[in-house]
């Protein structure tokens, strides 16, 4: 996990070649000392592209989750704390979003605005909003009955202040755990959209896009496909493990 973050940070400095540096004479070369992961159909170094691609996946994963986390938490906390028709309205809206398979919904959103990495990012963010909204709402529902919230209300605190200062901090840890797991999902979805041609556009070294381009050479140059695929797998696994670890660390019951 840390390795991945470090890699994403320093990739442009340590990558042996540029992501778009073509060498048509060296196309589809098997892994060697010069090209550890081999080269793709334009003679680009697969290792460099996988390394530089980590930045793209990280950016999409983190930004999409931040987008979903911020808007989802806000909706969920407000709905949970206020209750009544606000709650019904917000939550039915979330149900509508949840009713669609997330990838399909993301494809729909991208189709409306034309394919690009940024649209993919926004689409993935939107489809994950309900997860955070529901989590935040359930936290708000239980927290608002607690004594410290009642006390704050008795002292005359306004609703925004109670939600911001008292409910949110206490609801934070499950949201953070969920967000860490969400990054893994977002990375996979971005790769799926890239694979379908709906996310990053060539020549971006996005892992999903690299997979789809290498598919034609699966027999004579499997390395062009194996390494980006492995990168997706390892990264997703790392985020999932970190999410599990965080949950254990932040859950008071588990600690006891």
């Amino acid at each position, binding site marked *: 996990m840390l390795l991945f973050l470090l890699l994403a940070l320093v990739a442009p400095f340590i990558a042996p070649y540029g992501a778009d540096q073509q060498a048509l004479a060296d196309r589809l070369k098997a892994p060697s000392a010069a090209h550890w992961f081999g080269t793709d159909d334009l003679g680009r170094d697969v290792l460099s592209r996988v390394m530089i691609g980590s930045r793209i996946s990280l950016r999409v994963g983190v930004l999409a989750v931040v987008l979903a986390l911020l808007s989802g938490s806000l909706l969920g906390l407000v709905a949970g704390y206020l209750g009544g028709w606000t709650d019904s309205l917000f939550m039915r809206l979330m149900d509508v979003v949840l009713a669609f398979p997330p990838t399909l919904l993301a494809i729909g959103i991208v189709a409306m605005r034309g394919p690009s990495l940024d649209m993919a990012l926004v689409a993935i963010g939107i489809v994950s909003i309900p997860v955070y909204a529901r989590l935040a709402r359930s936290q708000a529902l239980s927290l608002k009955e607690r004594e410290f919230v009642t006390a704050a209300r008795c002292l005359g605190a306004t609703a925004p202040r109670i939600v911001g200062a008292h409910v949110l901090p206490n609801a934070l840890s499950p949201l953070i755990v969920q967000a860490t797991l969400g990054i893994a999902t977002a990375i996979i979805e971005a790769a799926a959209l890239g694979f379908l041609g709906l996310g990053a*556009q060539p*020549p971006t070294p996005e892992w999903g896009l690299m997979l789809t*381009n290498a*598919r*034609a050479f699966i027999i*004579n140059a499997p390395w062009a496909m194996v390494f980006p695929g492995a990168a997706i797998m390892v990264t997703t696994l790392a985020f999932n493990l970190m999410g599990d670890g965080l949950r254990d660390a932040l859950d008071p019951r588990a600690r006891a």
Partner: protein
Amino acid sequence: MPAGTRSGPRRRAWAALVISTLVAVSMLAPAITARAQSSARVFIFGQSGDATKLDPALIEDGLSSRVTEQIFETLVEFDGSSTRIRPALAENWDVSADGKTWNFYLRPGVRFHDGTPFDAQAVKANFDRWQFQTGDPFHKAAEFIYWNDVAGFNELIDRTEVIDPLTFRITLKDASGPFLPNLAQFTFAIVSPLALANNVEDLSSNPVGTGPFKFVEWVRGDHVTLAANPDYWGGRPQIDQAVIRVINDNAARFFELQAGNIDFMEFPNPDDVRFARNDPNLQVLLRPSLNIGYIDFNQFDPKFADARVRNALAMATNKQRIVDALYGGTGVNARQMLAPGMQGYNEAIPEIPYNPGAAKEMLSAAGYPNGFTTEFWYMPVDRPYFPNPQVIAQAVCADWAAVGVRCDLKTKDWAAYRVDARAQKYPVWMLGWTGDNGDPDNFLYFFFGTFSGRGQPNYNTWDNKQVRDLLLRAQRSVDYDERERLYRDVATVVRQEMPKIPFANTTPPLLARSYVQGYYPNPTSAELFKTVTVDR
């Protein structure tokens, strides 16, 4: 029922089920073998995309014409693997001394698949449909791109007449060199007037012609099935059924061919052709070259209205390196907007030099010392002249980046891609052309011969009256030497102005199972299944 006694009948029920399954499977097995045997006479063609329509007058792409050419026939057709003209629905013809009056003597006893007779009236009904586009009852708000833009028949044909049931006369306004080869194009196929009258809006669901195959079904995005026409005038085809299957992905199509699930395929990945050559079960056929892939500039965009910018980008592209690496040995670096060996191909014109330094200077002179960013549209499907457009686009853009021109690579669905290219919505785009009849007019008149102005659908955005006049004169001439001279002059102007970058000419490879015989790769890609045999 007590629990203990339940297991007995239940176990027996299972046994019965297993036995009956085995019996059913063993009964199916001969059926499966029988189907494999009967399928010996089915020819399955793996195609890279689906047809758009099955109305020959309205289509303009090879995926659609592959289907319509088996169902419909033209008055004259191409002979085997050449662009020589041979009789088809017309048994013979003559032309007046001034080259304007053409009499076609039609083949007697031919019937459409719906049983109605083929005669001069039927031919006339089709010509009227094409000619009187707004006044004819068979015309419904459609563009006859070939009639108007490719063949220029709207300008050329004066009138058509039925002389007797088997004699049809066409009178031209002027003599025309490419007239007869133009008539052999898939688009001027004769459709049953009854089918037109019944449902001209959607001929695609009921295409009725005179050809060797009858239409059976079209499952969109999946396959078209055709059945041999037992009453075909040229004799019943050797195969009983032809299935044109859509398999978009080149690699997947190749796997299907290797597995024997299809008998024939177009557009293999260049790297797979090498595998096919070494596989004793497969054969590689090469289509004689009659195509060109090019990069087009929208000259309504001020950047690309400047010939210096267009020339600079042509010089910035290392075409030779790209063609060598990405065409699998089936392509050559194109020098002009024709295929080598065609009439009018100007041997005096050299290759476009690769010179990024000079390109950069030229861009500076045009006012772009730091280059610029442009959208670059690449085709979503592989075509004979661009075997992998997305990869080629990336290679071209890497060259352009070296002189400061940055690409924003874009694509969209193939049908929409062409509509938008024709609507001039892209600044720079890739496209190409496979010749329909071997005549230079079929390339150059289509590329540069018509100009409709901004916003009017036309692939051509280059407003050059000199070239248009030269092309019209060449089209209206029947003198070989004069035409040759005129087309060479066109090539000279086109080289100076560089309205499009000629990219590559190819001999497109086709792959087949070794038992497929009688398939003649045609330079126009007009390939008829009527001679194909599949003796496995």
